[in-house]
């Protein structure tokens, strides 16, 4: 397909179709791998006028064309003939190797696609997003349809706003102000005062974008949860997310605690106080007064400060230093700023020297173990698999022969096994146990069992119990402790395993779910 653009109407050869949306298709451009073309299915002269104005009037702070495209600003309007001809689409910068924010927001996809994205990367992404929206706001444009699919993120946390042709645009033609509305929006990113409105006729403001920006920042930093996702305590069926937004049913703060509660294991306390305050300003104070919503510049400042205050625990989790323990593993902050070894090859072994004893897989169904370490052999679908339970910190299991893990494989067809450990964990144990499933070909203890973010197991997280009974950093009450072991799915490693440790029982059953696939 050949289209024409520029003052001389030079021919431009389009390549294959990359993606297809409701309005048009995105094509590559031959011999220009830094450029994409959007070709409309039903070109509208109004879109042409809007694009021509945008191209002539970019936001003052828009970075130079040579820099990373923070906003995929239109470059050239395209026609179907060298002279006269009809408007068909436009050219824009191409951002390579990026994923929609949606893929980052959901932990399960993130662990697969961008496993290096820890809290620090997510903070930086959020901050770069605030910068991008700020660039738009320091002009007469409004993003309008800011959502998880219109934001691209690269592996180094750079952000690009796309679908720029739907930005609300105001053209000055003589004394006239011609408004090109943003006719679209997703309810979950739409400010309360706009819920239910006919978007194609509403004048959007920066404060409306401010709401969507806060939702995205929340999702990035709060494990993909939407700020208005909640447990419904009212009568009948829970309202839809748009209704919850309209009614201001923010579960984390404000006056609606009798109707909505935060989802389990979710609290705003994990956010740096500056971010926490901005969230409340947006979703509580901003409910009736949109001007209270933080501006992109305010988010940028707070996110930069929060990022400064991130620290890393021994397991490589990154979290805000105002907390007394890592929210992912509830480890005490004994080695606050110790960076996690990132290089598994020749890198430091995970376990403290002497903490882990070598043990060859054998047919033994139980074995006596040394202090702090239990190596168990599971029989899963005919494969010999080792699961290592290591009390890496905090109280250790008693150094007696009683520290025996009995393995009773059950349900081998579903690759599920149950490990029974006796005796019970000491009552003071908080997050004393880490479980690392090991692939059949990686049973050697010399192999790093946890190689840090990006390589090997990407996350060893202990979630608080269902009904958190945590006082002074201690887990109390007859409750459960969750250990999530997730890894990159590369080379057939274990993807995700869930382990639950009941407290206060005579014996301890740890079901280990190992969806193991042998390495190629």
């Amino acid at each position, binding site marked *: 397909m050949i289209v024409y653009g520029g003052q001389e109407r030079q021919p431009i050869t389009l390549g294959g179709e990359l993606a297809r949306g409701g309005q048009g298709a995105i094509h590559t451009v031959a011999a220009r791998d830094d450029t994409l073309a959007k070709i409309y299915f039903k070109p509208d002269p109004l879109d042409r006028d809007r694009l021509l104005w945008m191209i002539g009037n970019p936001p003052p702070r828009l970075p130079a064309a040579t820099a990373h495209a923070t906003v995929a600003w239109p470059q050239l309007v395209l026609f179907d003939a060298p002279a006269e001809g009809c408007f068909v689409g436009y050219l824009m910068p191409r951002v390579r190797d990026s994923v929609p924010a*949606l*893929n980052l927001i*959901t*932990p*399960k*996809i993130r*662990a697969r696609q961008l496993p290096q994205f820890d809290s620090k990367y997510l903070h930086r992404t959020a901050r770069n997003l605030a910068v991008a929206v700020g660039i738009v706001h320091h002009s007469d444009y409004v993003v309008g349809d800011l959502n998880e699919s219109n934001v691209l993120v690269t592996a180094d946390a750079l952000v690009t706003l796309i679908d720029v042709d739907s930005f609300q645009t105001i053209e000055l033609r003589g004394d006239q102000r011609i408004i090109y509305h943003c006719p679209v929006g*997703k*309810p*979950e990113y739409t400010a309360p005062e706009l819920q239910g409105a006919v978007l194609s006729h509403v004048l959007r403001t920066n404060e409306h974008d401010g709401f969507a920006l806060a939702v995205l920042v929340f999702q990035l930093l709060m*494990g*993909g*949860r*939407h700020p208005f*996702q*909640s*447990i*419904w305590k009212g009568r009948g069926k*829970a309202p*839809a*997310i*748009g209704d919850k937004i309209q009614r201001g049913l923010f*579960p984390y703060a404000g006056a609606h605690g009798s109707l909505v*509660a*935060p*989802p*389990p*294991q*979710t609290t705003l306390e994990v956010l740096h106080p500056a971010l926490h305050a901005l969230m409340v300003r947006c979703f509580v104070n901003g409910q009736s007064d949109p001007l209270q919503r933080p501006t992109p510049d305010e988010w940028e400042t707070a996110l930069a400060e929060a990022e400064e205050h991130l620290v890393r625990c021994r397991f490589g989790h990154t979290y805000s230093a105002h907390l007394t323990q890592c929210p992912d593993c509830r480890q005490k902050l004994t080695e606050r700023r110790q960076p996690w070894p990132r290089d598994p090859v020749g890198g430091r072994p995970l376990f403290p020297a002497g903490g882990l004893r070598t043990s060859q897989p054998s047919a033994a169904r139980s074995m006596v173990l040394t202090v702090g370490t239990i190596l168990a052999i599971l029989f899963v679908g005919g494969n010999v698999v080792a699961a290592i339970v290591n009390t890496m910190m905090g109280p250790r299991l008693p150094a007696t022969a009683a520290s025996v893990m009995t393995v009773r494989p059950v349900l081998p067809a579903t690759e599920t096994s149950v490990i029974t450990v006796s005796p019970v964990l000491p009552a003071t144990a908080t997050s004393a146990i880490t479980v690392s499933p090991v692939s059949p070909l990686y049973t050697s203890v010399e192999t790093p069992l946890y190689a840090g973010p990006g390589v090997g197991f990407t996350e060893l997280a202990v*979630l608080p119990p*269902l009904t958190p009974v945590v006082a002074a950093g201690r887990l109390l009450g007859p409750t*459960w402790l*969750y250990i*999530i072991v*997730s890894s990159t799915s590369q080379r057939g490693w274990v993807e*995700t395993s*869930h382990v*639950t440790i009941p407290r206060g029982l005579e014996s301890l059953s740890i*079901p280990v779910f190992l*969806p193991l696939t042998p390495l190629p």
Partner: protein
Amino acid sequence: MSDNQLALVEFAENPQPRCPVVLLLDVSGSMAGEPIRELQGALEEFVTALKADELAALRVELVTVTFGGAVQAGDFVTADSFAVPGLHATGDTPLGAAVMRGLQLLRDRKAIYKQGGVDYFRPWMIIITDGEPTDTGAWEEAAEQLKQEEARKGVLVYPIGVEKADLGKLSRFSSQRTPLRLKGFEFRELFQWLSKSLSIVSQSRPGEQVPLPPVGWSEIDTA
């Protein structure tokens, strides 16, 4: 660890809204041979297609309830980690008991969604049968309960008849959708339609109306 607790851990990793889908599959003796092989193959393709759609794979939760002699049910699993069970044709057609089990699975699952603070789409129940229910007395009651749940907007019911299925009796399981008769054993087309439909639903928001692709796998039933 109870299912609830496992689900809540799963929600922490994947807080996407869920679309639960119950597949009620007739594996009675009359399905033996080509029909069950076609159904098995179509199911595998269906799950592969869902897995290829990143969002649908995280939002669509599947469970199979097979009925042939006895009723057997699995647990709800998101499509990205769903494994198709092996189907074996045997016995009579206790459709009523299967529907009751499906309804119970949905009730339990919705309770878990609520407990976990996860939004959900209206559940789907796909009924595929090639005969008529044999659990007389039970199936009429089950059909009534299913229609009530449908009327409460608690479930979308898709009754589908294969070959000699009694569409008259099948029609009593839904007051909103007339049962469709499958062309021959075109399970593949049916499940292609289903995966496309679920992908479209997954792109929407709970509570929103969504048009579905046209049905191409049924024949016009003049009976």
